[in-house]
């Protein structure tokens, strides 16, 4: 849903394996623990850790897709067919997607209740809930096995990004019409028309990105984003922080250059090339729960003054995430209403909504600034991934 990982810089040490951990909402089996319980502390996942190396993990509303050596495994909620197992059943543990065994899969994405898979030959497959046209097959049918999106039969798809009720597609090496959208477009998330549109079941070219070298796309909730090779961020869809919806891609008016973006349902995290984290629309981040149960012991996280021209004509407020004391950040991830980052010191930090334990801090409190998750001692490298109300972390073991 929110992954936009840039390939890591060359590593001096070699990755010899790793450990998977999960925490947060677990009521549909999305934590991969084999149980249906919420977990407030990180749970180690021995099966996932001992299997073949997972190169990409995509987390949706309540399901997970793992890509490993070109093969695909899925688990969690399957009641809309989003697991691609040919049935409408949820699954407590990782299970191979048999239909894709004849293909080498190179990219995956998980939306609220739908899934997208890209093969190394550029074919696109989708399954799950199609009632808004988000599967791209030209109709509003749902599918419980992956079905090829024939619109792209003669094009080479590189990435798919699945949001709540829409999908974005990035073509390989095409700067003319690089990005397509389909599904619900009510909040402008398709970026295909300045007028309010309901939905498109057939992929449409997204306006305003022609000629731009887009390197990654992102969708979550009713938000959409694209990142260009020169670090420009384009956003469209639901307005951040109560601002009006944006119906066509708009560049963020900032001199900063971004290397990663992670979208939530009401906020976006941006990582600059210098390892600084900024947030769009985050002025209420970490303030969702009932005041009686939440504990806001920290001062507001946002310090918009430090970013210069923080507010543009659309009222977008870009603000720096405080409490990091200049520590460089290597990775970011966003759930619907929570945020995760990994510092250069190998520390995983979380903040935002915590009611299901998705912050992994051992409680259900909200947090308005990043808090350290107790995952390991000493120097580690982590990758982090978020679904709507849950979190995964991968600790990389180096030789």
């Amino acid at each position: 849903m929110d992954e936009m990982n840039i390939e890591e810089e060359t590593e001096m040490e070699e990755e010899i394996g790793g450990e998977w951990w999960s925490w947060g909402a677990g009521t549909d089996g999305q934590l991969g623990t084999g149980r249906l319980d919420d977990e407030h502390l990180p749970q180690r996942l021995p099966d996932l850790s001992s299997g073949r190396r997972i190169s990409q993990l995509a987390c949706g509303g309540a399901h997970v897709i793992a890509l490993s050596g070109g093969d695909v495994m899925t688990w969690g909620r399957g009641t809309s067919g989003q697991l691609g197992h040919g049935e409408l059943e949820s699954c407590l543990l990782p299970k191979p997607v048999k239909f894709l065994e004849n293909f080498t899969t190179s990219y995956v994405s998980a939306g609220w209740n739908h899934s997208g898979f890209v093969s190394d030959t550029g074919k696109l497959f989708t399954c799950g809930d199609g009632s808004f046209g988000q599967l791209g097959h030209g109709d509003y049918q749902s599918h419980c096995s992956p079905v090829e999106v024939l619109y792209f039969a003669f094009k080479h798809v590189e990435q798919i990004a699945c949001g709540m009720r829409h999908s974005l597609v990035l073509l390989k090496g095409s700067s003319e019409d690089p990005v397509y959208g389909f599904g619900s477009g009510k909040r402008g998330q398709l970026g295909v028309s300045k007028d309010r549109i309901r939905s498109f079941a057939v992929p449409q070219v997204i306006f305003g990105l022609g000629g731009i070298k887009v390197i990654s796309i992102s969708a979550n909730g009713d938000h959409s984003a694209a990142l260009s090779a020169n670090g420009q961020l384009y956003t469209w869809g639901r307005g951040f922080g109560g601002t009006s919806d944006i119906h066509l891609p708009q560049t963020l008016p900032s001199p900063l250059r971004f290397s990663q973006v992670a979208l939530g349902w009401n906020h976006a995290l941006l990582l600059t090339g210098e390892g600084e984290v900024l947030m769009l629309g985050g002025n209420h981040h970490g303030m969702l729960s009932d005041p009686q149960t939440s504990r806001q012991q920290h001062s507001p996280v946002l310090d918009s003054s430090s970013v210069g021209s923080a507010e543009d004509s659309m009222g977008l407020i870009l603000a720096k995430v405080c409490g990091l004391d200049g520590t460089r950040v290597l990775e970011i991830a966003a759930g619907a209403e929570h945020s995760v980052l990994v510092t250069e010191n190998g520390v995983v930090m979380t903040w935002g909504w915590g009611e299901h334990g998705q912050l992994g801090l051992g409680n259900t409190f909200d947090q308005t600034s990043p808090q350290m998750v107790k995952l390991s001692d000493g120097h580690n490298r982590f990758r982090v991934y978020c679904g709507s109300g849950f979190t995964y972390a991968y600790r990389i073991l180096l030789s």
Partner: protein
Amino acid sequence: MSYDDVEIEDMEWNEEIQAFTYPCPCGDLFQITKEELRLGEEIARCPSCSLYITVIYNMEDFMGEPDRNIKKNLEPSKQQSVTVA
């Protein structure tokens, strides 16, 4: 505080739980029944967490002989159908 304001036309009718639903950020669904709408209730709650949304709708649409009315005007245009491959 209401998490969001959602128009009834953006909610989906769920046959299984007999309620209009909308995704909740926890992963579950905000839910409100036709009976609740008939009574003027405008809060749809999530059974798994403390969040709720405000549903925007015309109460008149749910009065009188409601079922036929609702079916015609308010149920999502596309009937959910699943193709089993």
